[in-house]
């Protein structure tokens, strides 16, 4: 025990106005102290720069490769007499719209302005100007918005079959639009409730993109092939408006309150930790919109008849109280309905990938209870149910969510072929996806003692990579019968039986409780 002996009063302190530091000086003082302790010399700096350059080049190569793959899939001339399809221009427009809505939601969740939790604790109580503290954050937000927008715009234009000029114009237009949305997010930041409402609206907008696709198909206007890029004059006007709004945003930054900046610091800490530990579940939790859950009235839970139904009812309440999750389920169903209108996704491997990915995502939206129970095991321990039975009960809602979406997605196939077995296959695949989502929710933390895999872009922690495959592995392998049926173009009874067996195996795997 450390005994404090000095009983003298603490010195009376008075501030000297000439000694007060500005926000910028406070930031610089902190950075200087950190630098003084860092071991980084010129050699390390050169290595770091080279490493970053190689990583950026590799990332650019990966993005370009993905864009080319997308281009090959999308730019397929429709055969004469084909039904109306969604052409590359419409798909590019929809992808661009989804990206912009996603960008707005992400900017609102990440701040966009902040000082981190340490800055919030040690800088904000000082009587320094806040803008001096926020300069790096302001630059970062605008730069990240413009950079991400440029990359997304280039990819979308390239995938839609655009030429070099189209790609450049697409990149510029999307960069300007994304920057504008970052500025809008910044202006909404001080108003927590308004920001939460806009974030929810952005989520709904992302989910609404496939619905717009359905509307385009129904209206018969989605078949265009020409890449649509805004006129330079329009881009210039929007850019000028963005600059003016950004300047206004910056003048208001001084009035950002500590509660807002503390909340942003907390989110950034969680996001940073999740990214560093390659934990997508933690990332999802960190990026959950503020005030996302709405409790209008207490759930009556009349359907509860025992411990298993208690868990199912709890999962249903959780899903119902998340407007974003419900909107995304509707969006996924619409995505599955509209995907067959894109030639590359209508049949075979393309359709299989879309069904598996959308089905798993739908199941994950229904598996929030399982994810919460993995984080706080007492939630499952509250009911007198074995761990295995508890996990099976937790599978019901995810399976229903996935099956609902997949059945909607299989409707065009079933109606086109006049064969209801497509619907049976879809429903059983939904059970597989539900089991996969629960397996993913209860997966063990990554094994950080596993060796690193050296790659030109840096070391990949094999333990974390192995953890990430838990869940998607069952989703993929358990959907093989559906995949075979899609490849041969007909759902035989054998495929239905095999899919049923796969669902049983998936449930057994998902409900297995490993010894800790």
């Amino acid at each position, binding site marked *: 025990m450390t005994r*404090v002996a000095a009983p003298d009063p603490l*010195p009376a302190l008075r501030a000297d106005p000439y000694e*007060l530091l500005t926000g910028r000086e*406070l930031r610089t003082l902190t950075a200087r102290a*950190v630098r003084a302790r*860092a071991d980084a010399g010129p050699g390390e700096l050169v290595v770091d720069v080279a490493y970053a350059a190689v990583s950026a080049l590799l990332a650019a190569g990966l993005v370009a490769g993905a864009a080319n793959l997308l281009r090959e899939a999308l730019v397929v001339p429709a055969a004469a007499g084909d039904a109306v399809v969604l052409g590359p221009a419409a798909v590019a427009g929809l992808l661009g719209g989804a990206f912009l809505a996603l960008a707005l939601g992400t900017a609102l969740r990440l701040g966009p302005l902040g000082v981190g939790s340490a800055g919030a*604790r040690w*800088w904000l109580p000082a*009587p320094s100007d806040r803008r001096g503290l926020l300069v790096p954050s302001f630059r970062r937000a605008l730069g990240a918005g413009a950079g991400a927008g440029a990359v997304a715009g280039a990819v979308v234009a390239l995938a839609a079959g655009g030429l070099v000029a189209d790609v450049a114009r697409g990149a510029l237009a999307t960069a300007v639009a994304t920057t504008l949305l970052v500025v809008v997010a910044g202006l909404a930041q001080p108003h927590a409730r308004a920001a939460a409402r806009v974030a929810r609206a952005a989520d709904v907008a992302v989910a609404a993109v496939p619905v717009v696709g359905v509307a385009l198909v129904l209206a018969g206007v989605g078949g265009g092939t020409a890449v649509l890029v805004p006129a330079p004059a329009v881009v210039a006007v929007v850019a000028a408006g963005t600059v003016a709004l950004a300047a206004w945003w910056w003048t208001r930054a001084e009035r950002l309150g500590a509660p807002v900046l503390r909340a942003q610091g907390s989110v950034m800490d969680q996001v940073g930790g999740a990214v560093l530990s390659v934990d997508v579940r933690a990332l999802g939790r960190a990026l959950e919109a503020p005030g996302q859950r709405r409790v209008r009235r207490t759930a009556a839970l009349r359907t509860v008849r025992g411990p298993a139904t208690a868990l199912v009812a709890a999962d249903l309440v959780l899903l119902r109280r998340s407007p974003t999750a419900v909107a995304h389920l509707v969006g996924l169903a619409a995505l599955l309905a509209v995907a067959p209108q894109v030639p590359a996704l209508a049949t075979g491997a393309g359709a299989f990938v879309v069904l598996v990915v959308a089905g798993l995502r739908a199941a994950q939206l229904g598996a929030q209870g399982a994810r919460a129970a993995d984080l706080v095991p007492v939630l499952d321990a509250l009911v007198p149910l074995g761990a295995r039975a508890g996990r099976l009960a937790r599978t019901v809602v995810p399976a229903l969510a996935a099956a609902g979406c997949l059945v909607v997605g299989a409707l065009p196939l079933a109606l086109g072929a006049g064969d209801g077995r497509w619907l049976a296959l879809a429903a059983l695949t939904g059970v597989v996806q539900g089991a996969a989502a629960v397996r993913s929710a209860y997966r063990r933390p990554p094994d950080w003692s596993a060796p690193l895999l050296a790659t030109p872009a840096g070391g990949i922690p094999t333990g974390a990579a192995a953890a990430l495959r838990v869940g998607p592995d069952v989703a993929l392998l358990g959907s093989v019968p559906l995949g075979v049926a899609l490849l041969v173009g007909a759902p035989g009874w054998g495929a239905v039986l095999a899919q049923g067996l796969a669902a049983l195996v998936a449930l057994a795997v998902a409900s297995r409780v490993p010894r800790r």
Partner: protein
Amino acid sequence: MSAPVLEARALRVGYGDLAVCAPVDLTVRAGEVWAVVGANGSGKSTLLRTLLGLQAPLGGTVAAFGRPVDERERGFRARVAGVLDDDAYFPGLTVREHLVLVARGHGVPRAGEVVDGLLDRFGIAAQGRALPTELSSGQRRRLLLAAGFVRPRDLLVLDEPEQRLDPGMRADLAGILRDEARRGTAVVLASHDPVLVGALDAHGLLVGEDACTVLAPGRTRAVLAEVR
């Protein structure tokens, strides 16, 4: 009688639209020590955060030095020190550097000397060159407390300052807070420690769901001992 340093009238605090305790009426004058007491979850910390401007009130008014509480005002930040349980640190800064940062941020002349004296007083002089991550939980608490005293202040708000402190440091903290009050600083603290509250002879505010009651200095310790 001096003008109030802090004044709350029908102040409602909570989250969303939900108040966590009954409306609060409170007047704190220079040199007074007020102990906010109540059961776990009664709203003590929420009240303190609202008094510090770190949370918007749901209703009523709260003013410091005659003006509505607004932590965005530099004048407010210059005069009001808060010690909450924020366990966040710059990973590359030492204990001493954290305190120097606070002192210099508040324009304290000869910040290094002031910080060295405080490190000694709070029993963490030997850890001055250590990173906060290398400290024990109790030592980190001492660092947070020292940060509240390394800068000028007319109002000091502390949330359960006794947490994780050993008995010796608790006793010394009582002496430090008494000195603060003698010097004219208004002190508001939430506490579960009857000994600390008794040693301070503090006015009390019993926070509850149905009513928030002001307690005379002599009664605060007794009421705190009964709080469940």
